[in-house]
């Protein structure tokens, strides 16, 4: 696995973290906006991966 781009799982985890943080009521507004923007960024990363779904099935030849 190359690390140049975040994996789907990592991006999803960050999205979940951002979403959780935004649920707490006493989060400062500036931080909330930052969290929101980050969450949306990770959402886009995940979505882009899924949008590129192009399943290939191949058979290994010996």
């Amino acid at each position: 696995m190359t690390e140049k781009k975040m994996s789907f799982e990592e991006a999803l985890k960050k999205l979940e973290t951002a979403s959780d943080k935004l649920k707490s009521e006493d989060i400062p507004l500036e931080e909330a906006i930052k969290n929101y923007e980050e969450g949306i960024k990770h959402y886009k990363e995940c979505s882009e991966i899924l949008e590129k779904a192009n399943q290939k099935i191949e058979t290994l030849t010996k």
Partner: protein
Amino acid sequence: MGLKPVMVSQLNSYIKRILQTDPILGNVSVIGEVSNLKFHSSGHVYFSLKDESSKINCFLAASNLAKLTCELTEGMEMTANGYIYLYERGGSYSLNVRDVETAGQGDLAAAFEKLKAKLEKEGLFDKDHKKDLPFFPKKVAVITSETGAAVRDILKIIKQKNDYVDILICPVLVQGPNAAGEISAAIDDISENHRDIDVIITGRGGGSMEELWAFNEEVVARSIYACKIPIISAVGHETDFTIADFVADLRAETPSAAADKAVPDTEVLREYLADLRNELRRNLRMLTEDRRNRLQILDPQGMGRDMQSRIVLEQLKIDNIIKAMEEALRAKVLACENRLLIQREVLDGADPKAILSRGYSVITDESGKVIKDVSLLEKDQMINIEAAKGRAEARITRSGTGIRESKGKEKSHD
């Protein structure tokens, strides 16, 4: 010497009669290893039994096959009971099998337990060594027979669930003497040369213990253990347990179950992502609305109103204090006036003029000194008399003790 030449068919017919009338060949049990196993479309089975140096063709009729209690597999050791039969047209003979006993059945179970105990002791089944399956694999390798039910089931389930993951099918034999070697080599190959694979499924559909045996071979167990990529084993049915199941990072009950465990549902993931995004939006909106409401409560006009009423309140407080002070001052003044009046009355009472007004007089000598003892006055001494009204000068005509009256203008009092 000798008979006259005979036809081929006559000879074969003669041999057939000899063979089939022989008491031993009519009911014989033969021990050997199965090879060249062929299941004919007619339902009959053709195979060879062999030992190290020899082999014999065997035929098992479909009707007898149905009665067998064990499955026939390539390479299995067995005892076949039957009779020798000559196929006249080909001039070949074969063992016409009535029944089969697999001496190996008990041996296989023993071999299984022995290998299981050995590998367990070596730590090949340790939980600590087991790798977690990736949450979102990009590519799955399936090591199984290309034509079996397993690959069909696996592809079906994966395609239903996940439209993202790529699948690499690695065709191997899954039964027979070469199966274990091929499975093991395929695992080694994927582990070493296909690092883009995120998870491996290896297995096959259901079958007899002999048919599943490749997955009980040590070489397969070693490859699974050494494999750098997580492996799911999927051999046979729920009730089948193989050595591969114990070594694998995860055991799936069936090939379908393995496919299900290997990949996430991409539709569910898409919905989940959309939910998360909506939640983000909703929560931020709620948060900003909350802050806006709080801000509205704190607006300058409201604060001005609050300030105004506060001022009024404070003014009232001050007014009350002033009023109380004035009241206290007034009371104080009144009290002082009263005291002054009393003192005045006292003073008034003490004024000598007031005494004179009651008829008394004051006598002073020429220097103005008040005479308190008239006996000390001398004859012809001048004195002053002061009454409530007016003053007069008088001359003493007589003085001394015993004199009750004095002459002149001096007024006497009783």
